[in-house]
């Protein structure tokens, strides 16, 4: 019973509720929001953020961060364009790009876990480094002539309906990540690392190795997102996905993952992604400019961390007051 109450009070449940409420309100109140075509675009727009948010959730739960993801996406996209120019087949390029993403993640992993450098600093460095390498690979050119069979699949929908094909990729990966995070010993070890990495180490978790693989997975997913981004816009460019890392971090924090680690859920994060996407989409349909929406993103982000703090603070002070009241009564 108390577990249920704890669950109801936690931020990720709140954010799921808010997301559902906003979805209903938008469908009812915003013209064209419930439209099938709009739904397709909504999913296509949130796809890269949602994909990258999956491993980012795990990384932030362990108390670390990966700011290099959007640059990894851009570098993979640039390499994809370069390889295509060199005449490789797309069937070879796609797995190669995911592998390159994994390698870039491994570089982060080695720097952070073998050399013991702070992840914030390392990934700010590789953010600049990978984006720079993307520019070195492709310059400011764009490669656009990818085969229709692939670009068409990414932008296409299942049976011509409103559900985009790529949603399958997202759902499959989300289920895998969800099960691993919430139903396996490995997942539990991530929470343990975030809560207290020394305690986790003493209870037999190989903290360094775990974190290393998280960065590899994060890189691989960013590579995959790079491939899908390139195919969606039929355009390999070095600046693809610039600034996306902040949207991902915002969604993850909005979804109730503690920046200090140890707390959060994948469902919360996915509804955080959905909430941001729905708000942006609905307000844009109302002719609010895309850039002005940044205010909404920023305020939501701060509120999502501020509100639980305030609630906890108020609850603590009430509790303390009650405790103080007890001896007075008994005397």
């Amino acid at each position, binding site marked *: 019973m108390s577990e249920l109450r704890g669950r109801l009070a936690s931020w990720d449940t709140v954010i799921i509720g808010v997301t559902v409420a906003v979805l209903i309100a938008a469908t009812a109140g915003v013209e064209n929001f419930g439209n099938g075509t709009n739904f397709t675009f909504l999913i296509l727009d949130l796809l890269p953020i949602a994909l990258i948010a999956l491993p980012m959730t795990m990384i932030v739960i362990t108390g670390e961060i990966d700011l290099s993801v959007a640059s990894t996406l851009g570098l993979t996209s640039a390499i994809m364009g370069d390889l295509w120019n060199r005449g490789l087949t797309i069937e070879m390029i796609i797995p190669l790009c995911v592998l390159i993403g994994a390698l870039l993640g491994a570089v982060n992993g080695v720097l952070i876990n073998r050399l013991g450098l702070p992840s914030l*600093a390392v990934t*700010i460095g590789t953010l600049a480094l990978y984006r*720079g390498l993307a520019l070195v690979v492709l310059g400011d050119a764009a490669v656009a002539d990818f085969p229709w069979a692939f670009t068409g699949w990414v932008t296409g929908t299942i049976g011509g309906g409103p559900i985009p094909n790529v949603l399958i990729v997202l759902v499959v990966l989300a289920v895998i990540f969800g099960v691993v995070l919430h139903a396996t010993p490995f997942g539990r070890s991530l929470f343990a690392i975030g809560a207290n990495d020394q305690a986790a180490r003493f209870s037999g978790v190989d903290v360094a190795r775990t974190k290393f693989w998280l960065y590899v997975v994060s890189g691989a997913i960013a590579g995959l997102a790079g491939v899908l981004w390139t195919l969606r816009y039929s355009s390999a460019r070095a600046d693809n996905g610039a600034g996306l890392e902040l949207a991902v971090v915002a969604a993850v924090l909005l979804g109730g993952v503690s920046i200090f680690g140890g707390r959060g859920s994948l469902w919360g994060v996915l509804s955080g992604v959905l909430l941001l996407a729905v708000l942006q989409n609905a307000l844009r349909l109302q002719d609010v400019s895309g850039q*002005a929406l940044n205010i909404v*993103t920023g305020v939501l*982000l*701060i509120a999502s*961390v501020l509100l639980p*703090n305030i609630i906890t603070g108020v609850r603590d002070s009430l509790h303390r007051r009650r405790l103080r009241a007890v001896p007075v009564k008994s005397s």
Partner: protein
Amino acid sequence: MSVATAEIRKNDKKPRLRIGYVVRQREMGIVLALVVLVAYTAINQPRFLGSQSITDILLNTAILAVLASGMAVVVITRHIDLSVGSVLGLSAFTVATVMQDNQGLPMVAALGLGLAIGAVAGVVNGALVHFGNVPALVVTLGTMYAYRGLTYSWAGGQQVTADEVPRHFLRFANSALLGVPWLVLIALVVIAGVGLMMRNYRIGRELYAMGSSPHAAGLAGIRIARNTLVAFVISGALAGLGGVLYASRFGTVDASSGNGYELQVVAAVVVGGVAVFGGSGTIWGAGLGALLLTVIGSALAVLDINQFWQQAIVGALIVLAIGADRLVAVRIARSLRKRDSHV
């Protein structure tokens, strides 16, 4: 380095000297890199040392260095301020618009307005960080969006162009006092002033202490709330000042001015030897970092090396800088441990 500093505080009887020694070493590294880079470039392309080239480098460094000085204060306090690019944009657009509407307004008013806008933005950041108990990374990520959004919702797609602002406003950035451009003078004054504050005044030493160990600083009676606010106000105000200088230098500003600038500022600070996790580094190191980044950019251009390498080099430099930092920290910790065991 914060680990090392904490180690030192615990173990060493004369901490001041040790920290100074290490820090000086770190900055000597940047100076050396600068000398080698400039010498190599100048030998291959003598026009690199031409007066126009040097002026350009200094002007470009000036704005970056002003922001980096503020960022260094925040980073030394073990926080970060990702909103500086957005504050620069907000200040640049506001000041340019006000100057456009009031052509007679003196430059001092523009500078004051920019500082004030930045200071207010900084107060909001600092208050949210301290009283909201929200990590600076989250707060300033949020306000980075919010301040940028504010500028966009106000400015929309319009821009202020160079021919709409008063002449004297534009002339300011390019005119000089005794041969030194005003922009550079301002940057030097900022570095000297903030540097002096951090080095010689109580508030500065308290900010270092907070960065080394926030908990211990609190227990030692340091006024954490006031100091956190001061750090963010300095960073915000200097970003606001940077906005005025930006508007004066380029003349044409829109809502996207300074977009993504925060990364460059953080890079300058980190490359300049300020440890990301607080407690060490100097303001003039951050200034040197800004100079090094700018010189790399111009050197690449002069040497006809693909400009696209610039960002990759900056990234590699950041990784290198924190790697070197870590190496020094580990070494000091080890040598201190060894010495302790003999006692």
